[in-house]
């Protein structure tokens, strides 16, 4: 599947206007402006410490921004936003370190949130969970504990767990960085499957092959700023900024 420029139109599902974030005196995000449209798939890359994680963690308010506005699906979000947990339920997140709940089985990991926060009946939650476990292609692991699975399997469970909340947007924070090379592919394939189904996705990743084939837009960040953004073919073929060129020179195979 090749990237098409621009996704479905309409009003953006996520808008960031002039968002800044400090940790103490350290400026992690500087004046970020970003619009994400429904169905759009964005890959965010940039050197370590450039604020990629902070950016997507501000979207579901795992980090709180100090300046600017973040609007999700028509509702402004912030540390004191009304119904913040309501909004979080509509935003799925996948972490680099999986963060599965080790004391619960794979199935329970997937049914916990629907049952606890959506009051879904157990049978319905389990049916839903099995459907998503099927979709990430590990239905047979439902009754195991996370510790019994490989890294790639755990990350696929984490994706299924997020999907069980039926999110409008999925955030990925370097989902393959903690994986052994042979497991990267299975997770990327799962993500490509999601993309094909039209999921709105923001992915922090250095998997440039994934970016080329799936992203509508690639964003390059450095020192807390969005330095450059473009559709992947433009981004990789004609990077505008020197910083982007340097970065791509470091992570892309030469030749």
């Amino acid at each position, binding site marked *: 599947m090749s990237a098409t420029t621009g996704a479905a139109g309409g009003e953006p599902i996520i808008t960031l206007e002039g968002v800044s974030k400090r940790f103490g005196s350290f400026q992690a995000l500087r004046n970020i402006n970003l619009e994400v449209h429904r169905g759009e798939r964005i890959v965010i890359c940039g050197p370590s410490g450039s604020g990629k994680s902070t950016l997507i963690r501000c979207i579901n308010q795992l980090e709180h921004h100090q300046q600017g506005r973040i609007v999700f699906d028509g509702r402004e979000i912030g540390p004191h936003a009304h119904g913040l947990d309501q909004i979080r*339920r509509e*935003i799925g997140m996948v972490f680099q370190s999986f*963060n*599965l709940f*080790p004391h619960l089985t794979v199935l329970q990991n997937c049914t916990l949130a629907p049952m*606890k926060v959506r009051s879904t009946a157990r049978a319905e939650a389990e049916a839903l969970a099995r459907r998503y476990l099927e979709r990430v292609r590990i239905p047979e692991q439902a009754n195991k504990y996370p*510790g019994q699975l490989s890294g790639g399997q755990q990350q696929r469970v984490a994706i299924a767990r997020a999907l069980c*909340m039926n999110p409008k947007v999925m955030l990925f924070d370097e989902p393959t960085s903690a994986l052994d090379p042979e497991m990267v592919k299975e997770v990327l394939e799962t993500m490509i499957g999601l993309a094909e189904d039209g999921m709105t996705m923001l992915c922090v990743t250095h998997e440039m092959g994934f970016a080329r084939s799936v992203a509508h837009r690639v964003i390059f960040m450095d020192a807390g700023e969005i330095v450059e953004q473009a559709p992947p073919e433009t981004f990789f073929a004609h990077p505008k900024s020197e910083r982007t060129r340097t970065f791509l020179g470091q992570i892309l195979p030469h030749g």
Partner: protein
Amino acid sequence: MFHHFGTNDFLFLVAAIRWTLALSAIAFIGGGIGGLVVALARTAPLAPLRLAATGYIQLFQGTPLLMQLFLVFFGANMFGGRIDPLIAAAIALTLNAAAFLGEIWRGCIEAIPRGQWEAATALGLRYPAAMRDIVLPQAARIAVAPTVGFLVLLVKSTSLASIIGFVEITRAGQIINNATFQPFLVFSVVAVLYFALCWPLSLLSRHLETRFGTVSR
């Protein structure tokens, strides 16, 4: 007027075990409930709760248990007539155990990685649900061994209740000693009885440590 330590004296000591156990059980259950409250307050997102819990822990860890016992016993006697030594001892030990268990369990709660909170929060769980369904069950596993370890200390600290006249094993030993004047023999028996109570608990604690300390699930 003295008689030799005999079977009846031994049985008297053995019978007193139930009071040591009863006091231990009351303090453990009461202290467990209080300790959970203290641990939750100590790790709460609200600063005043944390401050109050910290103050409570400092107060009870920073003063001798014997003083706490005296304050409850004589304090109650001062304000409202007599207080039963069992009740006084139960109150003092419960308050004390709540502080120690609260501090032990705080550590267990804080040992749960931040990623667990983040995953729960990202799924839309609010603080109480994340605490109850994600953090506490994992913290409980880590807590089992040190909690049983604390129980051993608690059983031994009940001996202090003898000083306010509560007849548990130690007080029973004093009574028998007053009648036989064979202190070495009598208190050796008392010590062996404590050991018989505490040693299995110590073994259990060590067993639980290997059982829950290493497995990942």
